[in-house]
């Protein structure tokens, strides 16, 4: 098989997979690169997706089916050793794959390298990696998937569980000034799932602002309050420690009453935010496009999106936090723009 494509797609998460599918419908030949052994990106880690709580595995299964096309060459466990503009038109990438070194070329590049979950251990005061009962949103999804919340909570059928919003988001000191957009909805979803699993649990969400911005998200909030009795405390958790029974003691301010609060918990879930993928800097660096001060790739236009650089496009969270439907939408849009570009319409944005 020859190694020339219309488009190289970097990253086979939801954005890359969806764009590959859309482009294949247009008859465009793509090479879909994934550094991990499997396609799926962060969807692999998640159990259910808000707002309806659909199974991530079903969504992923559906997306994987759609990329089974003769127009798509998927290479997993692929490392990009170099990527550059060829003399004249198009791009060239040198890859290290399970089948050895390989050079591929294409007319266009779609960057869909996604995000990195914030490393919660950086917030030392939360004790992630130090206290057994402190976990992250991704850890909890894994516990849900494997039906093993008991490994943290134990036999207690009336546990107290806390969720800390904005871990590594809206936090200049942690290097992320931005809002990660999806964590509030994720926390509310996970809080309700805990109540489903442990109807007698007391569940607290510690938030700074509740950003339930999307369609049906406010309904989730209302449901969490009314149906599940989840308690919302407006205040950021400031200190976490362990008591002599190895339960978690968390401190925060209840900013609405202006009083400090203390609570003992059986599990504390840190809502690790969406941080930029540091790998994106290597890619954009070799392609002469820019990353913003927040580390995400810079849009050429704040309204119409896309990046500066002929034949280079982006989709998904490499340009900032997005929900799954937003990512899917952007992937579809990127496919349309790439199609137009390849047909000679360079006036895309």
């Amino acid at each position: 098989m020859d190694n020339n494509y219309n488009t190289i797609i970097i990253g086979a998460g939801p954005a890359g997979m969806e764009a590959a599918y859309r482009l294949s419908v247009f008859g465009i030949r793509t090479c879909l690169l994934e550094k991990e052994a499997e396609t799926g990106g962060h969807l692999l880690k998640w159990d259910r997706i808000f707002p309806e709580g659909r199974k991530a595995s079903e969504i992923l299964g559906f997306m994987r089916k759609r990329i089974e096309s003769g127009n798509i060459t998927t290479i997993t466990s692929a490392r990009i050793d170099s990527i550059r503009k060829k003399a004249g038109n198009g791009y060239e990438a040198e890859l290290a794959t399970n089948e050895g070194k390989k050079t591929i070329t294409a007319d266009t590049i779609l960057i869909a390298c996604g995000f990195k979950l914030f490393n919660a251990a950086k917030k030392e005061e939360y004790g992630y990696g130090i206290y057994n009962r402190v976990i992250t949103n991704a850890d909890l999804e894994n516990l849900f998937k494997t039906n093993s919340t008991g490994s943290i909570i134990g036999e207690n059928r009336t546990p107290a569980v806390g969720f800390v919003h904005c871990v590594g988001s809206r936090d200049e000191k942690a290097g992320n000034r931005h809002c990660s957009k999806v964590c509030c909805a994720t926390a509310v979803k996970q809080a309700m799932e805990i109540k489903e699993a442990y109807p007698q649990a007391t569940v607290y969400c510690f938030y700074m602002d509740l950003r339930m911005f999307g369609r049906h998200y406010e309904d989730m909030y209302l449901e969490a309050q009314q149906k599940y009795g989840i308690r919302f405390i407006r205040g950021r958790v400031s200190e976490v420690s362990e008591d002599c029974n190895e339960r978690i003691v968390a401190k925060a301010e209840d900013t609405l009453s202006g009083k400090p609060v203390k609570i003992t918990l059986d599990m504390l879930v840190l809502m690790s935010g969406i941080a930029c993928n540091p790998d994106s800097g290597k890619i954009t660096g070799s392609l002469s496009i820019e990353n913003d001060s927040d580390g995400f790739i810079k849009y050429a236009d704040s309204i119409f999106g896309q990046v500066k650089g002929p034949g280079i496009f982006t989709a998904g969270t490499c340009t900032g936090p997005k929900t799954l439907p937003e990512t899917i939408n952007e992937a579809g849009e990127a496919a349309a723009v790439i199609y137009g570009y390849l047909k000679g319409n360079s006036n895309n944005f």
Partner: protein
Amino acid sequence: MTPDINFGFGLSKSSRINLDNADNEKFRELAAREPDILKCMACGSCAASCSAGNFTELNLRKIILMLTRGAEKETVRQLESCMFCGKCILVCPRGINTRHLIKSIREIYCRPCAEPETGNGI
């Protein structure tokens, strides 16, 4: 304990709310009778429009909050100033029947004196 020695100072009372004790029977009874109390999102519309709130400590937003935190004493007292005018019902964006809620709070939390006492505390 009365100290033999007068140090001239003593332990200060902590203002900290211990959420471990927040769940109490009274609140559960209230939530069963007034499930809409759980819908409050602390917007403050009720407190902003309250007839009594400008002249007394009465603040329904805070009262609901403190009850969910298990701290009842300091807040229930405030309800004595309520004139039951019902302005707060008009503004609540989540449609909580706040007037009825206040009545229930008084009935459950001020049991020995369920009926409004004479004088409104203003």
